[in-house]
C-alpha cells in the first residue's frame, strides 16, 4: 500500500506538471516541472515520508531499464547513422567528454573562487 501511495503521488505531481506546462506555455517538459514542484513541497513539509521514499527508490534503482525502448529506436535511423557515422560519433564522443570535463572544472574552480568549503566524501 505504501508503494502504491507513493506512485500515486508521483503521478499526481507529473500530471500537475504537464497541466501547468500546457496552461502557462512554459518551454519545459511536464515531468521536470513536476519534479521541481515536488521538491518545493518536500522543502516546505520538511520530510518525504515512507511511501514516497519507497516508490522513488524502487523507480530509481532501475532507471537504466527505462531507457531501453528509446535506445532500440536506433534501428529506425540506421541509414542516417551509417551515412553520417563520422560526424555523429566524433561529435558525441568528444562533446560528451568535453562537457563532463568542463563542468567538473567549472565547479571545482568556482568553489575555490568563492571559498565554499571543500569536503571529501562522507
Amino acid at each position, binding site marked *: 500500500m505504501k508503494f502504491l501511495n507513493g506512485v500515486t503521488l508521483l503521478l499526481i505531481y507529473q500530471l500537475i506538471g504537464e497541466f501547468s506546462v500546457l496552461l502557462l506555455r512554459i518551454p519545459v517538459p511536464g515531468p521536470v516541472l513536476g519534479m521541481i514542484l515536488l521538491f518545493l513541497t518536500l522543502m516546505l513539509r520538511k520530510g518525504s515520508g515512507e511511501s514516497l521514499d519507497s516508490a*522513488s527508490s524502487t523507480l530509481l534503482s532501475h532507471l537504466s531499464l527505462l531507457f*531501453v525502448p528509446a535506445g532500440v529506436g536506433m534501428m529506425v535511423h540506421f541509414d542516417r547513422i551509417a551515412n*553520417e557515422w563520422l560526424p555523429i560519433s566524433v561529435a558525441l564522443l568528444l562533446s560528451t567528454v568535453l562537457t563532463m570535463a568542463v563542468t567538473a572544472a567549472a565547479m571545482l574552480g568556482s568553489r575555490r573562487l568563492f571559498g565554499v568549503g571543500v569536503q571529501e566524501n562522507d
Partner: protein
Amino acid sequence: MTEPDIATIWVYLSASPLLGLTMTLVAYSLAYRLYLFTNSHPLLNPVVTAVAVLIIFLLATDTPYQDYFEGGQFVHFLLGPATVALAVPLYQQCSNLKRLWLPVLIALLTGVSVGALSSVLIARALGGSLQTQLSLAPKSVTAPVAMGISEQIGGLPSLTAVLVVLTGITGAVLGSKMFELMRIRDDAVKGVAMGVAAHGIGTARAFQISPKMGAFSGLAMALSAFATALVLPWLLDVFDLLL
C-alpha cells in the same frame, strides 16, 4: 481441430504489447546479470547490452520498431514518474545543495553551453547535415526534454532520442575513468558533471557509485533540462548556428 502452427501464433503475439514488454524486461535482466557477473564492467552497461540484444532480435524476426514499441511504451512511460521521483534524493541532499548552490549554478551554465555548442560545431566541421547537427544539440538532456527542444529548433526528435541514449551511455562508460584521470574525488563534483553531460543514464550509473553522487547527478540533470530548454534556442541564434 488443426494443430495451431508456430507462424500463426507468432503473427498473433508479435502484434500484441505483451511480447515487446516481456522482451524488454527479459533482455534487461539478462544484461543486468551479465553486468554484475563481470564486476560492473563499464562497457557492459546494461542499456548497451539490452538494446543490442533487442535490435538483433527484432531484425532477425523482421519485426518493425513500431510493433515492438507497442509493448516498450509501458516501460518508456515510467520515465515521467521516475523524473518526478528525482525530487526525493534531491531533497535528501538539501544541506549539501544549500552549501554549494553557486558553484553548481556556474558549472551548470558552463556545461550546458559547452555541450550544445561543441556538438553542433564538431558535427559541422566533419560535414554532418544541418538536421543531424540540430538533432545533436540537445544530446546531453534527458530524452523527453531533448525531443521537445529538437523539434523546436528544427532537428529530428526521434533521431535526438537515439543520440541522447548514446550520449548517456558514452558518459556512463567513460565517466569514472575520466574523473580518475582528472583526480576528482568529491562525489558532488562528479555527480554534477555526470548529470550535465549524461542525464539519466549517467545518473543511473552515479547511483551505482554512491547515493550522494546519484543525488547530485539527478539534480544537475533536472536543472540542465530546465536550463537547456530556456537557453539553447537563444544560444544557437546568437552564434548563428541555425543556418
